[in-house]
């Protein structure tokens, strides 16, 4: 066991904002880029659905031409994110020292799953390509990453809906603390798919006005997005031994479940507990949290629940909602929020929601950009319509502060 706090030493992301963390940092405050989804191999939307597409990279350019023929979009998105951020580290590691891989995704490659079924219905069972079956298991993108980087140490997928990415980061921290491994590339992945979009459309969660207005008084739903954000999570000792300077410390986390949240009704009891428990785990008081990256996405009841819960626990602490920038990306949302928080922390700012709409009174919701003093704590929340509650507290690390800190580390 190693109960010291794990650290993040590298980050990578691909979203509608762009590819790579530098691109994210530079463009986070820019006007959000929306595309649309219309025609697919087996199905089509009568009206294209606005969404935030992560078509900001060329798979062949990032990954090369070989080995991609039978790989689906979700897999390419994950592989490209990992290639951009961690290829060198994987190549430099020996077999027993390879970082593990842990991915959070709500749906996996549901486009592949639905198409496999649609193909068998339309063309008959005997027309289906056997190779396509491999893409229908939710752990398929992760497995493809393990194969590409020859990582035998760990391959896990976590699938807790909206919270999947946050829970994957926590899984990685737990695994490291148990002493099984020192380094894991962990985060979240979600693709835009016909089947998920159709589900969202039929359930009435998409904004009919195609706007995503977190905490908006006139919010009427969300706009879906896709993306992938992955982080090198490692024990502090491993980072020090490898001379890798942490970007941030994962100071604390908690997850909980709210039984009363169901079918569009949201209750804040477990959300409040979760945020307090994460602070306790981090050894801090609520007042020590510098700002909160909420999971607000324009579903009014859900946003109102989170706003009230934040108000109850934190009072006036500034709040932002990064989903306004990249859409509701399900399993990728929380890790993308972490990536945005790292970019903001590093720049000494908070990128709030875009200007131009009215937000709930009760909340100190940042509009545009606000200044922020480096070295403090940031909270990232994920509260889902299924009742899952996950909170992660990260700490900004200045290099100097880290060096002073790591000489005092103990493990047992």
């Amino acid at each position, binding site marked *: 066991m190693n109960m010291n706090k794990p650290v993040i030493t590298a980050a990578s992301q691909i979203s509608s904002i762009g590819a790579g963390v530098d691109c994210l940092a530079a463009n986070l405050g820019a006007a959000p880029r929306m595309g649309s989804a219309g025609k697919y191999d087996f199905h089509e939307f009568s009206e294209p659905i606005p969404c935030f597409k992560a078509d900001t990279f060329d798979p062949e350019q990032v990954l090369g031409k070989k080995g991609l023929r039978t790989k689906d979009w979700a897999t390419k998105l994950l592989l490209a994110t990992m290639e951009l951020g961690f290829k060198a580290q994987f190549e430099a590691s020996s077999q027993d020292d390879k970082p593990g891989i842990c991915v959070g995704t709500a*749906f996996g490659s549901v486009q592949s799953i639905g198409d496999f079924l649609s193909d068998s219905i339309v063309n008959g069972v005997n027309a289906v390509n056997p190779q396509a*079956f491999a893409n229908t298991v939710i752990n*398929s993108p992760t497995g*493809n990453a393990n194969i590409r980087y020859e990582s035998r140490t760990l391959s896990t997928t976590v*699938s807790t809906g909206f919270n999947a990415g946050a829970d994957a980061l926590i899984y990685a921290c737990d695994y490291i603390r148990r002493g099984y491994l020192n380094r894991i590339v962990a985060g979240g992945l979600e693709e835009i798919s016909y089947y998920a979009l159709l589900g969202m459309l*039929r359930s009435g969660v998409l904004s009919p006005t195609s706007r995503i207005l977190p905490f908006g008084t006139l919010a009427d739903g969300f706009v879906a997005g896709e993306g992938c954000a992955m982080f090198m999570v490692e024990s502090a000792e491993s980072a020090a031994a490898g001379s890798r300077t942490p970007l941030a410390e994962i100071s604390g986390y908690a997850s909980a479940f*709210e039984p009363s949240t169901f079918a569009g009704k949201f209750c804040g009891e477990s959300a409040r507990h979760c945020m307090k428990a994460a602070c306790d785990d981090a050894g801090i008081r609520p007042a020590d949290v510098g700002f909160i990256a909420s999971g607000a996405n324009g579903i009014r009841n859900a946003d109102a629940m989170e706003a009230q819960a934040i108000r109850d626990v934190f009072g006036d602490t500034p709040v932002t909602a990064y989903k306004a920038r990249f859409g509701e990306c399900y399993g990728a949302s929380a890790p993308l929020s972490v990536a945005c928080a790292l970019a903001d922390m590093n720049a000494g700012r908070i990128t709030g929601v875009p200007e131009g709409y009215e937000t709930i009174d009760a909340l100190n919701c940042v509009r545009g950009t606000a200044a922020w003093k480096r070295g403090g704590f940031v909270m990232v929340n994920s509260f889902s319509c299924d009742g899952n509650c996950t909170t992660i507290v990260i700490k900004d690390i200045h290099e100097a502060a880290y060096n002073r800190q790591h000489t005092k580390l103990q493990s047992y």
Partner: protein
Amino acid sequence: MTEIRTVITGLGIVSPIGTGVEAFWNAAVKGTCGVRPLTCIDTTDFKTKTGGEVRDFDAAAYIAPEKIKTMGRSSQFAIAAAKMAVSQAGIEFTKENPYRVAVCIGTTMGEPQILEQGIKAKYTASSADAIPADLPRQYPCAVIPANVAREFGVRGPSVIIPTACAAGNYAIGYACDLIKLGRADVVIAGGSDPFSSIAFTGFNRLLATTDTVPRPFSKNRDGMAVSEGAGVLIIENMEHAKKRGANILAEILGYGIACDAYKMTIPDPSGSGGIRAMRQALRNASITPDAVDYINAHGTGTKENDKVETLIAKDVLGERVKSIAMSSTKSMIGHTMGAASAIEACACVLMLMHGIMLPTINYEEPDPECDIDCVPNSPREVNLNIVVSNAYAFAGNCSSLVLAKFTGS
């Protein structure tokens, strides 16, 4: 620092040879074959006509009627198995800190029947409007542990790990980690999968399915049988279990997980992932190969799996492999996907409790490449103390779980 110990206080099983722990065990010691001609799917266009089905499942026996229609078959199985396990454990959630009771489930396909229902409705009506508005929210696999947690009103972490056919072991392993890290006192852990036409189609297209019944380790074996079911265990912090006077059934000493990193649907012929996982499991359980009394195999009955699994056992156990047995529960229940290693963990607890090794049925012909004692066709009485249960999956996900007779503190 003394590590927290994780014990099992309740079991629940839904399977093609019996729903309920007693029904399952009675059928299993008799060597009952649950792989039969399928009734839940039209097999006309498929090369294989057989599989495993839970034919007598009565959801209303476990779930209020108005709730049944809000969830798919996988959730229903999981709740049923969870209720059995909770009942056996004698646990009253009103007396527990609800935030310290977690749910951790493994699955392969999640709620595939919901997706199938939706897509078929759309094709039949030529319109997406034919999909009921409350259907989509029943699909994401996160609903499975959520439905279980909601049923008991518990508020701890609710997790789903979809690592395909090894998912049960991954979920049980993580449940133990949650307890050992002090994040939970009790975890409702296991795996669930309903019969999936996607899985059935896929395995048929891979030519991986048997034309009759699975014959693990037999020379004339011709493939696996797609099946369904759920297995749930109540896993607790030992001190917590003792304090409330629970009857402890067995102990989980540790687990190991690893990855072949070879191919998506073909196991590494050298067994690298399985060897790594089993070695890790023994190390994490602080035991040597000499302490292992029995292995519950992944044992699907495909040519490749059974051959590689034999290799893995020989590599890790060395000479010891000649003195112990390795049998396949899948010979009886078929391959229940994400539920497999959860049902098989329950079976291991029962074997430890009763001192009986379950057989590998349908065994006809020894295979020199699988020259292990697979307890052919009849169960065998043996005093068991420590057993290992393996599970291997697509994407090269490999796992081993170490269970032991509870010896007290």
